[in-house]
């Protein structure tokens, strides 16, 4: 059996994993929302810029992105990041690229009549987005965003490669020290990862309920047309 000390090590590793995931999610969500809106903007330059961003950051493997941020930025630009900063930057920009596409699809799925009704009550373009389109689009974004977030949480194990003591790194340590059997260690790690992902799922569900008020969630936007 794992000793209390060993368990504590795993817990502190899990805490790092949660932090990396949470910070990445914040960065990724912001980029996704901005990117989703920008990819539908009237400005060609903005659309083009978003396209390039999405293709690059989606196309590059997360681990190379992480190494690039952590090892190359100091050499090229003299920018030194802590492992945690490098982790959330790499995973956040990566998540933002995927998320932009999700956000774009969700915004496009909102019936055009909603924007027209918002124009008929003379809302500014910003208010149309903020009060009419986005609140409805967010409901459509949430399920795929939940998936993405779980992907990011699992990908956060990559930060163990840049010496951040996350859950995976701690597990490797314990195994090297032969402090417990691999079976014990990795079963514990498996359970911990699952608990984190289950919490994400429950959290996203709660958000869906919160934002889905009035909307026929699951059956599309029933109230939108007719």
């Amino acid at each position: 059996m794992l000793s209390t000390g060993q368990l504590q090590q795993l817990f502190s590793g899990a805490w790092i994993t949660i932090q990396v995931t949470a910070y990445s999610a914040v960065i990724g969500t912001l980029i996704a929302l901005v990117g989703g809106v920008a990819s539908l903007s009237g400005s060609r330059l903005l659309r083009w810029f978003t396209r390039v961003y999405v293709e690059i950051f989606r196309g590059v493997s997360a681990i190379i992105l992480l190494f690039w941020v952590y090892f190359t930025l100091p050499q090229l630009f003299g920018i030194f990041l802590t492992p945690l900063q490098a982790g959330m930057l790499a995973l956040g920009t990566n998540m933002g690229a995927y998320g932009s596409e999700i956000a774009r699809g969700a915004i496009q799925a909102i019936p055009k009549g909603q924007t027209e009704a918002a124009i008929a009550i003379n809302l500014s373009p910003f208010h149309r987005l903020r009060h009419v389109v986005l609140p409805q689009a967010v409901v459509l974004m949430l399920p795929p965003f939940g998936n993405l977030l779980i992907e990011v949480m699992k990908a956060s194990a990559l930060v163990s490669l840049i010496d951040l003591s996350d859950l995976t790194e701690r597990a490797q340590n314990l195994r090297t020290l032969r402090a417990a059997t691999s079976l014990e260690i990795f079963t514990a790690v498996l359970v911990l990862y699952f608990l984190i992902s289950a919490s994400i799922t429950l959290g996203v569900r709660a958000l869906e309920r919160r934002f889905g008020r009035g909307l026929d969630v699951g059956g599309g936007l029933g109230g939108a047309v007719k």
Partner: protein
Amino acid sequence: MATRENEPTSDGESAGGRPSPERPMVRFDSVTKAFGDNVVLDGLDFEVAAGEKLVIIGPSGSGKTTILRVLMTLERPDSGMIEVGGEHLYHEERGGKLVKASEKHVRRVRGKISMVFQHFFLFPHKTVLENITLGPVKALGVPKDEARERACKLLELVGMEGKHDQYPASLSGGQKQRVAIARALAMQPKVMLFDEVTSALDPELVGEVLGVLRDLALNTDMTMLLVTHEMGFAKEIGDRVVMFDNGRVVEEGPPRQMFSQPREARTRSFLDAVLDHE
């Protein structure tokens, strides 16, 4: 609008202008709009007087809805000028020249107009009350409490009191449309546009919406443009009926004359076809 951007107004008056009693509330000056090869507004000229209730009839695809959509700035005309309350909608004067209007100018002039749609387009994520207060609070800057108070009065007006906190999904079509009318009224527009507002309703729900429209037409001095297939209703509340086809006005006149003795064969055949169904 590139072709006409720098041209002066046809009557040579200064742009922007001052609203005056003689001026029409709405004026179309050679307005053209085409979707691909399909010309839906073909050099349209027409005027609506302040307070007038204008009924627009015509076969589907004749462009009558486009008149309303161009006025609401949902579609941009290809060429021509539109004035609302004596001000250009799509143009503004800058340095003595008439140029394409800024978003700010369009928004200001658009504030005089609101619209009710065939398919309601209520905001499904907002309650009935929130649907009505959103525009006044965000676009007019009315304090929330005041907006709420006014919304309650409007809900009474359309016979929807006691439904404040419901979401649109729980309402019938007729109820949704009455809320949509209240939402448009909350903007205190000078001009109201009604785009086939009863066409998407079950027959037994048409009456309640027409009742609200009738009240508005008879008891307010708002200028109203109604695209409708309800000929009986048009006859009752319309000051003038315009028959529209192929992007042009075929014929216009007071309802009594238009419905009983239309001059144009096209109007006659359209009315025959429509009235046969009633």
